[in-house]
């Protein structure tokens, strides 16, 4: 009888313990320190040996169990947060894949243009194909949709500022869009609460280059633009045959104009970098968060460097 009472008490506690260790908590995600990955695996050049000194850093994002959530709240290196539409697995993976594509485009263009300054045999031929939607809360436009015309006028007739002002000044615009299969459709969009609720980026097509290259970045399961700066540096170092004799890593997106953009998960990346790299580049906008994490590490093994654009990072390496 006594044993039975004890069992009745123990079984639910035991069941709860097992559930808290197995079942992921719905609506939550956690970011964890991950690992480093050589960028040379992502791009290969004809008749050139990859630099192999540059590493991108990835973090691990997953749904936590209740037990992991508790540990996550206690551990500074782990971030637990509520899932939103843009952090939910499918949407964030698709958007991450698009941003990774763009990041590589910008990295290649910027690296080749910079390398062409020191070696005139290096060339790149590219054209602005369209603008691509990278964030959308607009019902009519999906992430990944590209547009080539605004109210019948081709995008090439707008400067960046003019395009931005066109969106600001008009309440309704007809966009000529292309989907993944290049099907042309006219979509009329209207402002709600004074905004169109979209973010767009330049989408280039690279027609030719010397040296020729082949990308492999889409073959792995990791997506996202955070390796943009490091990709640019790796490409530059490879095609100009420069060696720095360091393990170089960092984070930050590469923008079309060569500036380095902010990225998430900086804290986890700093902890991942320790004992693995010699130098870590961080975008200006993320520097404070990175420095806070950096200061928490006892005897850090790497140098934390703040950069605002590709040129600044290159100058630091060449100095």
């Amino acid at each position: 009888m006594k044993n039975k009472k004890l069992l009745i008490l123990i079984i639910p506690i035991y069941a709860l313990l097992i559930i808290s260790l197995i079942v992921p908590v719905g609506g939550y995600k956690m970011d964890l320190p991950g690992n480093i990955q050589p960028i040379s695996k992502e791009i290969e050049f004809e008749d050139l040996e990859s630099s192999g000194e540059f590493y991108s850093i990835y973090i691990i994002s997953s749904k936590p169990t209740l037990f992991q959530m508790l540990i996550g709240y206690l551990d500074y290196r782990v971030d637990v947060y509520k899932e939103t539409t843009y952090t939910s697995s499918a949407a964030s993976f698709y958007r991450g894949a698009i941003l990774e594509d763009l990041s590589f485009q910008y990295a290649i263009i910027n690296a080749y243009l910079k390398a062409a300054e020191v070696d005139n045999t290096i060339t790149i031929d590219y054209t602005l194909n369209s603008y691509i939607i990278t964030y959308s809360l607009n019902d009519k436009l999906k992430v990944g949709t590209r547009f080539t015309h605004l109210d019948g006028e081709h995008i090439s007739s707008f400067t960046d500022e003019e395009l931005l002002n066109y969106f600001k000044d008009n309440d309704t615009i007809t966009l000529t869009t292309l989907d993944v299969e290049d099907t042309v459709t006219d979509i009329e969009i209207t402002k709600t609460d004074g905004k169109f609720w979209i973010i767009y980026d330049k989408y280039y097509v690279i027609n030719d280059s010397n040296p020729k290259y082949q990308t492999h970045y889409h073959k792995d399961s990791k997506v996202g633009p955070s390796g943009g700066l490091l990709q640019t540096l790796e490409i530059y170092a490879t095609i100009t045959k420069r060696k720095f004799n360091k393990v170089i890593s960092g984070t930050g997106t590469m923008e079309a104009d060569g500036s380095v953009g902010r990225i998430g998960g900086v804290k986890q990346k700093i902890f991942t970098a320790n004992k693995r790299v010699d130098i870590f580049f961080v975008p200006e906008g993320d520097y404070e968060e990175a420095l806070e994490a950096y200061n928490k590490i006892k005897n850090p093994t790497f140098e934390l460097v703040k950069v605002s654009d590709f040129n600044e990072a290159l100058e630091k390496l060449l100095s």
Partner: protein
Amino acid sequence: MKRLKNYFRSLELIKVEEKKISKEVRNAAKDSTALKTFFLFLPIYLIIGNIMFMFLHLFNLLVLVINLFVFFNVYFYQYMYYKTIELKGMRVIILKTIIYGLIINAILWVIAYIVGGFI
């Protein structure tokens, strides 16, 4: 040498004693012991697995912790089994714990190496 002979002699005696107990009783003891061991050690392994996934830099250390718990696991199973069939066989328990523990841990390291390689 004499001590070693005695040791193996005592192991044999326990084995003989064990054979005297009917197969049904032994199997029933094995089943109930396996169930108890499973429920006792499952949360421990799950806790280690949860932590292992969160802190990849502790991967090897946590594999070692699992190795240690494998020995506890095997020891507990053998101890409960011999207790259930009412036999005093500490020497057999320790010997089996070491042999089974080493075999399971060897397999675990192979799995850990394969999983660790992918991380």
